[in-house]
């Protein structure tokens, strides 16, 4: 992926040229102080925007329900499909439910699914990836083949198949998304582990008699976190998108629950009468995904310039 390029171009010109200058002149003239993560992020306006969007929605996910004017399933039958007004800032849906309130409650679902799915996929991917990359040999071959097989399914389709078989519930949606995205984590971790495992400090740890788990946890893992953090952020975007798509298809939360994806699909039938009922939740999804994408791209630049390929 070359998203780093995309982010870079959106920067102020000074940010871009400063980096280029450091690359060509730095070695000959004076080694410039390595910028910290935070200075780099601040320099990158798009990444900062991403971080702000993510923070905003994360805060909404935590405290949003406290500020919701109405309950997520509270119905006002005399106010069906009303356009945005002072009483209902984002309008109401076909049952007369306040869309703003539903959005505020729905943020929690998106973040819960994202965090848990990325958490499971990340843990599994780290474990399998480090083992495969460090041990090599047949174990690596078997694990890589397994991941290739999972990878051979279009993501959304495999998730659908898993949910159909396990049963339609939000927990199974999380499991399905986690399974689908585990191979990508494993690939990232395996690749990073491969590039670290032959370094002198690992050799030193081995010759000092450190056990394999200790080497993996204390020596390899701290050195592969950069690509992992980037991947986790981008994957959060995928997970939010996947949850919304599955909810749109009716998989995951059951109807009255305010999942953003199912809000879009249930108001689709009233699109002509009440476009806001579909547009507001749709925009919420797109903004959250955009935030994580921007943040992931920015972190990629900040944490490891070598990742720009």
């Amino acid at each position, binding site marked *: 992926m070359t998203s780093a390029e995309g982010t870079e171009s959106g920067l102020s010109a000074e940010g871009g040229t400063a980096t280029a200058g450091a690359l060509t002149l730095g070695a000959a003239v004076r080694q410039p102080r390595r910028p910290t993560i935070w200075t780099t992020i601040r320099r990158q306006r798009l990444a900062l925007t991403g971080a702000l969007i993510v923070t905003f929605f994360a805060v909404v996910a935590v405290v949003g329900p406290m500020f919701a004017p109405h309950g997520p399933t509270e119905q006002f039958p005399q106010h069906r499909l009303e356009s945005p007004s002072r009483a209902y800032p984002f309008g109401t849906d076909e049952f007369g439910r306040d869309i703003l309130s539903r959005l505020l409650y729905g943020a929690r679902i998106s973040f819960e699914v994202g965090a848990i799915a990325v958490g499971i996929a990340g843990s599994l991917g780290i474990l399998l990836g480090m083992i495969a990359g460090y041990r090599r040999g047949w174990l690596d071959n078997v694990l890589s083949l397994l991941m*290739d097989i999972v990878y*051979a399914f279009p993501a959304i389709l*495999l998730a*659908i198949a*898993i949910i159909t078989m396990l049963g339609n519930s939000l927990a199974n949606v999380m499991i399905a998304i986690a399974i689908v995205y585990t191979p990508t984590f494993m690939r990232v971790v395996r690749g990073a582990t491969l590039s670290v495992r032959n370094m002198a400090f690992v050799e030193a740890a081995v010759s000092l008699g450190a056990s394999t788990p200790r080497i993996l946890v204390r020596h390899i893992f701290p050195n592969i976190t950069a690509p992992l953090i980037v991947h986790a952020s981008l994957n959060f975007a995928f997970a939010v998108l996947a949850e919304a798509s599955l909810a749109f298809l*009716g998989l995951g939360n059951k109807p009255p629950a305010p999942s953003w994806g199912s809000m879009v*699909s249930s108001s689709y039938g009233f699109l002509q009468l009440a476009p806001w009922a579909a547009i507001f939740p749709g925009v919420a999804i797109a903004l959250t995904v955009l935030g994580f994408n921007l943040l992931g791209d920015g972190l990629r630049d900040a944490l490891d310039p070598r990742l720009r390929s």
Partner: protein
Amino acid sequence: MATFVLRRLALLIPVLLGVSIVVFGLIRAVPGDPVSIMIGVDQRYTPEQIEAIRRSYGLDQPLPVQYVKWMSHVVQGDLGRSLRTRRTITEELGLRLPVTIELAVLAGLIGTIPAVTAGVIAAVKRNSWLDYGATIATLIGVSVPNFLLATLLVLIFSYWLRWLPPIGFAKLTEDPVQNLRTMILPAVSLSMPLAAILMRNTRSAVLEVLSQDHVRVARAKGLPASTVLTRHVLKNASIPIITVGGIQIATLLGGTVIIETIFGLPGIGRYIYEAIANRDYPVVQGVVLVISTMFVLISVAVDILYAVMDPRLRHR
């Protein structure tokens, strides 16, 4: 070259076998077994009768035996029957695949040609407003879910402007004009992620080649800018573009489930959606197997194309 192709095809075998085992395993993971699902809550069957049905389907045999039997049918093109309509899945796929393929081809065309053009322009005019515009378009493209884009397109072009139907389908062979009118919005919705990712990758691939020495040499020789761009830059930049494009076109297949459902197109995406709604497990199994196989075959085709274009890869 022939050895490369053969080796690549040989690598396909374990993956395809694995895919088939997963698909076979998925239906076994359903709580209860296929027969009880087929019969449902019908109380008329005695346990002995259920056992007889189970035996007649070979479900009393060990799993590996069942798998081999199932695979031998699949290889002969027999994917079983729908629990609901009792029609064979292969027959149904024959009717529905052309719709999905047309949709994917249209989305592929819409997604690649403008995206590659825009990516090249963005790279050549780096840091211009065109470049920034392309970057922003890319970010929106990867962040807007395809069902939202579909919703907005229907709202604008079907309800407000009334140019195109919001739903419906006409056969390409019977009414090509109406067919295109019903296909254009789904194809555009489906092509969005492909276009966004392809544009981003084209831009960076072209930028990378532009900075290389051979391009400077070509310019120094006094070649016109257009020749440098087509002969020296695009030719070299095309390899990563094709790889990414290939992967994304394969990914389109997954998106058809949502898009065909929204627009009521009778393709395999909607087929699987309906099968899920009706808990029609053999159909889910069959369609997942077919789409995944297509997905794997496309990625292998891309790999081979890659090697045709870049001789260095053949000897790895």
